[in-house]
Structure formats: structure tokens, C-alpha cells
């Protein structure tokens, strides 16, 4: 029985650690840093916990100590994600404005990450106390001949529990319940284990029973509030809401303000968080382009993917740009990313001779959304039900290595490389692989992060995204790189050297006036692009995109 208990306890601890690391990673966009820091601090906590038990607690009754540990662990572990979300939201509404000189938008996530490590350490410390308790209990019991009762087996149970935690939480529990509910659920498992061990060791008293209610009530209350917290977090983030003063009145105002807006739909898949922002939501937070804010919007990991009032310009440009430059319409097309189906719908609309469209998307949740969620399937005109569209659910990075077909045009529509997962889709290895899937006169169009501050040169820190892109693409063997799109920049790539230009009269498609304005060369702002081998972005040695 001790064996099972230790297994379950270490399952819970591993779950807390992974959930905290994951939440921190998603909030700060620093995946590698969050995971390795949290793992380090958790281990440190566990180790020191074990030592502390050996030094100061080993003479006390183990089950009494276990009782206190579990009550604390159930409350703070179960609420770990809840507390991280709340403190991040609190930080957002109170610190984001420019009045705080030293804590700017760039530094704040790191400060947050570091401060939260104390919390991770604390949970690790509590978890570290658990195993010695059971070792002690086992020691005091009479020796049995049962095979599963040795010290080694007890340690083994702990390790197996940790492994199960990592697999089950990542692949099964979080996709179903979401991070907030999963964490609270694990807290309940801790409570149940505590209850079971009290009963089986005949240590259950009324007083302890009453204490047991504390974590149950707290966890239950927070469990019912998880949707509200998530909405509060998302709404304050997207609305860029801020507290004017630290008093009850402005906090009340904040709650009222967020409640007056429609709810944001969030889907948590193992690959990304998909947020769908309802109409009229962003009109305050993106004031300089009220065009964006009035429609609905789709964000991936809190980065914009499309705005329903602007997607036409974006997708018309990416689709019309290629044939306008080459003078020939492609027949076989590969789309990498673009699970929203909008790009596919525009290709069907504009290219009359199109033969096949192969679309590779990593996230099945995104495809499901684009087919079944009405506001989106109306926008993409049920493109995925078209016979010419062939959907493949796979990682674009590995798919293009397996695929043997060649394509006349490849459209690459990934979110911008804020994380390492995305950065590898902008790497030299990726571009080399894509190159081999092109027919002789085929072309690639990339949606890329290009920007330049024309008014404040000091903001243009080297390497700029365009330096990294141009260096990586040149080293990958692309001879023609043409940049176009005044509002939405794209890169047009071909493998052999050609001199091309984008002239207004070459655009033979019926597109909106805005698209026509967008379809111009932007080489004037790319004059100072530097191509250096140290700027080449590789999966083995990534270069950070800063923008």
C-alpha cells in the first residue's frame, strides 16, 4: 500500500512541476528558460526538503508531519497554476504602463519568471518531504517478506509515478481539462491520498477531518471559478486594461469593464493556445487601426494570426503576389501552416487552373475549428471540404522531409518566431528541405516579420529579423529574394537568379484597393540588411528573433 501511495504522491508532484513550468512558459513565451529553471528550482527544493527532514523532522511522528505537508501541498500545489495566472494578471493590470521606469515590458516577464521560482521551490520542498516520511513509516513497521517493500522499490515507485505524471498530463489530461482544472484535480488527488493513509493507519480524528475540509473547500471554490479567472486573465491581456489606482474602486471598475465584454474562446492543444476574440473586442486596445479591432480575431499563443476585417488584404496579397511576379499561375500547391483555411479559400478563388492543394498543419484542433466553428468556416467558405484540398496533420518540419512530390508554389504561413518551436520553422534546415520540394520554376512565398523603425534608429537593434532571414535564406541557397507588402510584408523566393519587379499593371486579378496599395516592393527599407554567417538560424544553434 505504501508503494501505491508513494507512486501517487510523486505523480502529483511531477504534475505540479510540469504544469507550473508549462504555464510560466506560455505566459512569458520563454519555453526553454521556463522549463529548465523550473526543473532546477523544483529539484533544489526536493533535495533541500529531504535534507531538512533528515535534520530536523525525523524524530517526530511521521504521519503528523505528512498530514501538514499534504494539507499545504493540496492547497498550494492544487492552486499553483491558479496563483500563477492571478499574479500574472495582477502584474499586467498594475505594471504595464510606461510610468514604471525600470520595469518595462521587456524585463517584466523575466522578473515574473524569477519571482515565481520561489513558489516552484516551495512546492518542490514540500514534495521532497514526502518520501522520507514513508521511508520512516516503513522502517517502524515490522519487516515483511513482500517483494514490493524494500527501500529501492519505494524509490522506484516514486520514479514510476513521476514518469506517469509527465506522460499522462501532457498527452491526456491537459488537452481535455485545460491547465487550471488539471492542477486543481491533482490537488484533490493529494487530499484523497491523505485521507486514505489516515484511515489505513487508524489516525483519523474529528479534528483532522475538519482540517481536511479546508483544502477541499478552497480547491472546490477555485475550481468553479477557473473559467472566470481565465476570462479575466485573457480579457485584461487583450484589452490592455490597467488599474488607475490601487484601490477597491478601480478594481471594481476593472471587473465591470471586463465583464461588459464578450467571452474569449480558448482552446489548449499540446501545440498552442488558440484564442478567438469576438467582434468589437479590440477596438480600444488597437486604436491606431480601428479597422482591425472591429471584427473578430484569431490569436495563437497570444500572437495575432488574422483579423476578420483585414484578412482579405493579407491573403489576397500572398495569393496574388506570386503569379504577378512570375506571370504564371501555379497548379500544384503546398501550404505549410495556415490551418485557419483562409489561404486555401483564396487560392481556390483566384487560381482557376489549380490542380491540387496540399495543406500541412500540426494541430488537429485548428483544423477542427476551421471546419466546425461557424464564424470561421463562413470566412473560409468551407475550403477544407473542397475536393482539391488535401489536409495532412503533421509537423511541417518533418513532413517536407518525407514528402517526395514537387510543387509549383509553396506558401508558408506560420506564426512569427517568438518561441523555439516556431524559430525552427525559420531555420536553415527547414529552408533547405523546402527548397527540394520546388519544381524548376516554382516559387515560395513566406509570411515574415520584417520591421524597421524609421523615426527612432536606436530601436533597430542588430540582428534585425530581416538580417536573420536574409542570412539564413542566402545560406540555404536561394538566389532570388524579393520583398513586397507595405502593410503586410512577404518574401518571394526562387532558387535561380532572376531579376523581377512588381508593377501595378502586372496585377491582373480583381483585388481590393487596399491590396493594391499593399502590393509594392519594400526593398527601400531593406537596404542595410547584413548577410553574415553568424546570423544564420539553425535548430542546433538558434538566433533569437527580436522585435
Amino acid at each position, binding site marked *: 500500500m505504501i508503494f501505491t501511495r508513494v507512486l501517487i504522491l510523486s505523480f502529483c508532484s511531477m504534475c505540479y512541476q510540469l504544469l507550473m513550468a508549462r504555464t510560466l512558459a506560455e505566459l512569458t513565451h520563454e519555453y526553454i528558460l521556463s522549463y529548465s529553471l523550473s526543473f532546477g528550482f523544483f529539484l533544489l527544493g526536493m533535495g533541500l526538503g529531504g535534507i531538512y527532514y533528515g535534520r530536523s523532522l525525523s524524530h517526530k511522528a511521521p504521519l503528523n508531519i505528512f498530514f501538514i505537508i499534504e494539507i499545504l501541498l493540496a492547497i498550494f500545489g492544487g492552486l499553483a497554476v491558479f496563483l500563477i495566472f492571478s499574479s500574472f494578471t495582477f502584474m499586467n493590470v498594475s505594471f504595464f504602463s510606461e510610468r514604471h521606469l525600470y520595469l518595462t515590458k521587456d524585463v517584466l516577464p523575466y522578473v515574473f519568471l524569477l519571482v515565481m521560482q520561489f513558489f516552484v521551490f516551495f512546492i518542490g520542498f514540500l514534495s521532497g518531504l514526502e518520501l522520507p516520511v514513508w521511508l520512516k513509516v516503513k522502517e517502524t513497521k515490522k519487516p515483511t517478506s513482500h517483494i514490493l517493500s524494500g527501500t529501492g522499490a519505494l524509490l522506484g515507485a516514486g520514479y514510476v509515478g513521476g514518469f506517469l505524471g509527465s*506522460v499522462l498530463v*501532457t498527452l491526456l489530461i491537459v488537452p481535455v481539462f485545460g491547465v487550471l482544472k488539471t492542477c486543481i484535480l491533482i490537488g484533490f488527488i493529494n487530499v484523497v491520498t491523505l485521507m486514505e493513509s489516515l484511515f489505513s493507519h487508524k489516525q483519523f480524528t474529528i479534528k483532522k477531518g475538519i482540517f481536511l475540509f479546508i483544502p477541499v473547500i478552497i480547491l472546490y471554490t477555485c475550481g468553479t471559478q477557473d473559467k472566470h479567472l481565465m476570462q479575466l486573465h485573457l480579457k485584461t491581456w487583450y484589452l490592455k486594461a490597467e488599474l488607475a489606482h490601487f484601490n477597491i474602486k478601480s478594481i471594481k471598475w476593472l471587473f465591470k469593464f471586463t465583464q461588459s465584454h464578450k467571452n474569449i474562446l480558448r482552446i489548449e492543444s499540446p501545440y498552442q493556445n488558440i484564442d478567438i476574440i469576438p467582434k468589437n473586442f479590440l477596438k480600444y486596445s488597437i486604436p491606431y487601426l480601428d479597422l482591425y479591432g472591429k471584427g473578430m480575431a484569431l490569436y495563437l499563443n497570444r500572437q495575432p494570426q488574422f483579423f476578420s476585417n483585414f484578412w482579405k488584404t493579407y491573403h489576397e496579397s500572398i495569393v496574388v503576389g506570386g503569379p504577378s511576379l512570375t506571370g504564371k499561375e501555379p497548379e500544384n500547391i503546398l501550404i505549410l501552416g495556415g490551418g485557419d483555411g483562409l489561404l486555401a479559400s483564396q487560392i481556390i478563388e483566384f487560381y482557376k487552373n489549380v490542380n491540387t492543394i496540399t495543406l500541412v498543419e500540426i494541430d488537429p484542433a485548428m483544423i477542427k475549428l476551421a471546419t466546425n466553428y461557424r464564424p470561421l468556416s463562413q470566412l473560409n467558405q468551407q475550403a477544407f471540404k473542397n475536393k482539391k484540398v488535401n489536409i495532412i496533420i503533421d509537423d511541417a518540419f518533418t513532413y517536407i522531409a518525407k514528402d517526395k512530390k514537387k510543387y509549383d508554389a509553396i506558401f508558408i504561413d506560420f506564426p512569427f518566431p517568438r518561441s523555439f518551436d516556431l524559430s525552427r520553422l525559420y531555420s536553415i534546415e527547414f529552408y533547405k528541405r523546402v527548397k527540394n520540394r520546388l519544381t524548376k520554376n516554382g516559387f515560395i512565398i513566406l509570411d515574415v516579420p520584417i520591421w524597421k523603425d524609421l523615426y527612432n534608429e536606436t530601436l533597430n537593434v542588430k540582428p534585425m529579423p530581416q538580417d536573420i532571414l536574409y542570412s539564413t535564406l542566402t545560406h540555404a541557397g536561394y538566389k532570388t529574394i524579393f520583398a513586397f507588402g507595405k502593410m503586410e510584408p512577404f518574401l518571394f523566393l526562387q532558387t535561380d537568379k532572376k531579376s523581377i519587379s512588381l508593377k501595378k499593371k502586372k496585377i491582373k486579378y480583381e483585388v481590393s484597393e487596399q491590396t493594391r496599395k499593399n502590393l509594392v516592393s519594400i526593398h527601400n527599407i531593406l537596404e542595410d540588411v547584413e548577410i553574415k554567417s553568424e546570423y544564420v538560424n539553425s535548430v542546433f544553434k538558434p538566433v533569437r528573433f527580436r522585435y
Partner: protein
Amino acid sequence: MTRSILFISFLLAFCSLFYELIFSQLISVFMGSTILGYSLGIGTFVLALGIGSIVYDTLTINQSKNLKRLFYIELALSLSGLIGGYVTIIFAQFITSFPFLLQSLILLFPIVIIGFLSGMELPLLMGEKQELKEKFHILGLDCIGMFSAAILFPACFFLLGLFKTSIIVSCINLGVAYTLLPPKRACMIEKIIVLSIGVGACLLFIFDSHLSVFRQSLFLRGVS
């Protein structure tokens, strides 16, 4: 001896966790998600650590050869750190059409080996000491070692890249292995092996930029 054992346990834990993070990062590349790579990597590492320590527990026969055993474990660890990355890249090319679970099982294999070997380290070192208090000290430094690795890994990864980092860690590990050997003329063969691996590692480090071309061609194998 006490101090050096403490220092060794710090360094060994440092190297082990570093390997784990390096390979987690590497499999994230092939799995398509850092969350998946790291979560499964950490879980597997912990499991393998456990199996290693249990296997060691059941196999304890001759206590006198402990240091020699530890030496071989360290040698195996630093070798797997040096070549594990290349092996993973090669294997990853063959398994792209496998179902996801099988694919991740194969990709996680280097972590299993490293975890298994590292799992034997701690009981071996603790076996050197009799007193409970000293055992706790070893445990504590083990934790601090892992902690330092976790803090340093992100910086090393972005500054040096995955492969240069793994070479440096392997060299530290090799150094530790060397100190485990008895002084003066004993164990000459082992010493020569360690030194030649060390020279090899230095060469790998110096010619890393050339090797990166080689890695990419390995990586793009079959694409032509």
C-alpha cells in the same frame, strides 16, 4: 577525500542534468513541440534514474571496486554525450513515418541510457560514506549540481549551440572520470583511453563549424 567526493557528486549531477536538457532540446526539434519534448524528457529521465538506482541496489556485490565502476559509468556517459546527438539525428531520419508513440520511444532512448547510468552514480557515491549525515551532504550537493545545470543550460544553448555545449559537458565528465582513477602508474590503459577521448573532444570543438555542415547533411539525408 570527503571534500573531493562532495565536489565529484556536484559535478556528476551537473553533467547528468545537462545531458538530459540537451537531449530534451534535441527531441523537441523532432517532436515539433518544446512542451512535449521537455515534459516527456523529464519524465523519462526520472524513470531511468530510478531504474538505474534500483538495478544498482540489487546488484551490489563487491564494494571495493566502487570507484572503478563509477569510472566506467562516467566514461560511458561522456561518450554518449559526445556522440548521442549525432546518433539521434541519424535515427530521426529513419523513423519519420512511424506512429507518434513509437517515434517518441525511439527518440527518448538516449535519455533512458543517460538516466540509467546517472541513476547508478548516487548510490555508488553514497556507498563510499557510512555516516547518514555525510550521505545527506552528498544528496544535497547532488541537488545543487542539478540546479546549477538547469540555470546554466539556457545561456549555454543560445551562446554556444547544442553541440558545443555537449562537448564541454562531456569534457567536464571526462575530467571527473580521470580523477577517479588511482594516481601514478596504475590503470595506464584507462588513462590513455580518457586522454584520447579528451583530445577527440577538443578536435570536435575546434572543428565545430565544419561539423555543422556535416550535421546538416546528416539531417537532410534523403532529401538531396
